[in-house]
């Protein structure tokens, strides 16, 4: 059933158990949006936790260039990961959003955590501080 506002799919199709979430269709590659409507990034990867004698469990979504490029080729992913580790300011591991913050999927993935509490926008903040603010007209936010 399609939601009238944004096409999010919430209800299952006939014949499917009610608690099924098709991860590849409704989560992977989708836009991640926080409660205020801020764009956090795309879901570049979905992380599962392997557990002894129990089925794997989805624990987080990853918003990371390295994860995205790794899906194309391992070496591209490794290279992006090396770049991230070498140059990304104040980062030592890829930004992940725990799956417990997941609200719903569809054509957008809505999470209940504000972007400021994620580490997905570290480059945005770094660019704001180090470059954009130093150019005339770049020190204040809001609408133009």
């Amino acid at each position: 059933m399609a939601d009238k506002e944004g096409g999010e799919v919430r209800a299952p199709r006939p014949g499917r158990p009610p608690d099924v979430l098709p991860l590849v269709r409704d989560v992977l590659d989708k836009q991640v949006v926080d409660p205020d409507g801020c764009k956090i990034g795309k879901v570049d990867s979905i992380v599962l936790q392997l557990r002894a004698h129990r089925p794997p469990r989805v624990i987080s979504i990853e918003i990371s260039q390295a994860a995205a490029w790794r899906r194309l080729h391992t070496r591209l992913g490794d290279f992006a990961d090396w770049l991230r580790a070498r140059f990304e300011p104040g980062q030592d591991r890829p930004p992940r959003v725990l799956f417990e913050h997941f609200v719903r999927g569809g054509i957008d993935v809505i999470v209940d955590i504000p972007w400021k509490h994620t580490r997905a926008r570290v480059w945005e903040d770094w660019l704001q501080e180090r470059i954009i603010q130093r150019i005339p007209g770049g020190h204040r936010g809001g609408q133009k």
Partner: protein
Amino acid sequence: MKNIMNLALGIVTSIGGFLDVGAIATAALAGAAFGLQMMWVLALGTICVMFLTEMAGRLACVSHHSLVDAVRERCGFRYFSFLLVGELIVDLLVLAAEIGGVAVGLHLVTGIDYRWFVPIVAFALWLLIWLGTFSIVQNGTSLLGLITLAFVVGMWWMGPPWHEALKGLIPSAPSHDAARYWFTAVGIIGSLFEPFMLNFYASGAIEEKWSLKDIPMNRVTAVLGMGFGAIIAGSLIILSALTLGAHGIRVDSYEQAAMMMLDPFGSWGIPLFAACLATACFGASLQVALNLSYLFSQGFGWNWSENLKPHDDARFALVYTAAIPVGALLVVVLGNPLQITTFSMALNALLAPVIVFPLLILMNDRRYVREYRNHTFGNVVVSAIVVIAFVIAAVAIPLEVLGG
């Protein structure tokens, strides 16, 4: 009254999007070399682009997702990466061609080497995007672009052979120089199928907050805007045929193309051509530079809007800030802007299927377009366009070698 004004503005901006350095260059080349024989290519391409633009706009109105957004989400990262790399290369070359077009326009008026104008044009371009809102960028330059109506006036002044022009609408094989004929045809189609234009149009619809109630306006804008744009491009072909073609001038540079305005306008002809070229190219270069920012921001899910101050979408601002100097550098390094234009138009044709094919999927996906999805006729048309795009992409590079 407000709706009529919005509609008029929408049509004007679509004309602005239609007529850029590629359309001017390929139309001038076609008219000079093959007379009115290639009018059918322009007509075919215009019909295709009307459908594609309407679909890209409808997608944005219903889903509030742009084409690039939806391609990444629906077709996955692997497909998106092809689009990203392809469009990055093509858009940078088109940006170079557009900046070159403005610089050549200024050169035609002043006589100073066009390379001196390249950094000035690039800075003006960046400054306008940095400070301007979407409507200033889009509507302001498009209104200035109405000066290109001078091509229609010039064509009218020359007394066009309407019968010949209508005959040109029927597809025909070339009587001479077949490789060059088909290469020019690919260039015309490439100038119309510019991938940046479809995503820019959809992104613009989101910037302007179009919604379901704007679907009829989107349809009218796509048809009339592209239609009027085609009338100007058609006038250029006719004018070029009646002036350059009649005098046996083969267009190898913009200086030669400018001579088409001498017969109808006398000594004002060259400055008028220069003004048309510069304004049309400046408007288009704004669109290409912004589209590169849209491409990265939408593909990787960053915050984006030309209406936000750069502080709030730093990565969006960084992309155009980096792309504009690269485009400017390419003009200086690669030389002859007309050759950059024709080459980038062939690359446009090569990339077209990558952006057109997903439309077939997206416009039938209920989650994106709900009950506003394509009907059978729309699907048949877009399937035909996909086939045309694939055929053109397959022959673009061989023809570039043989006829370019």
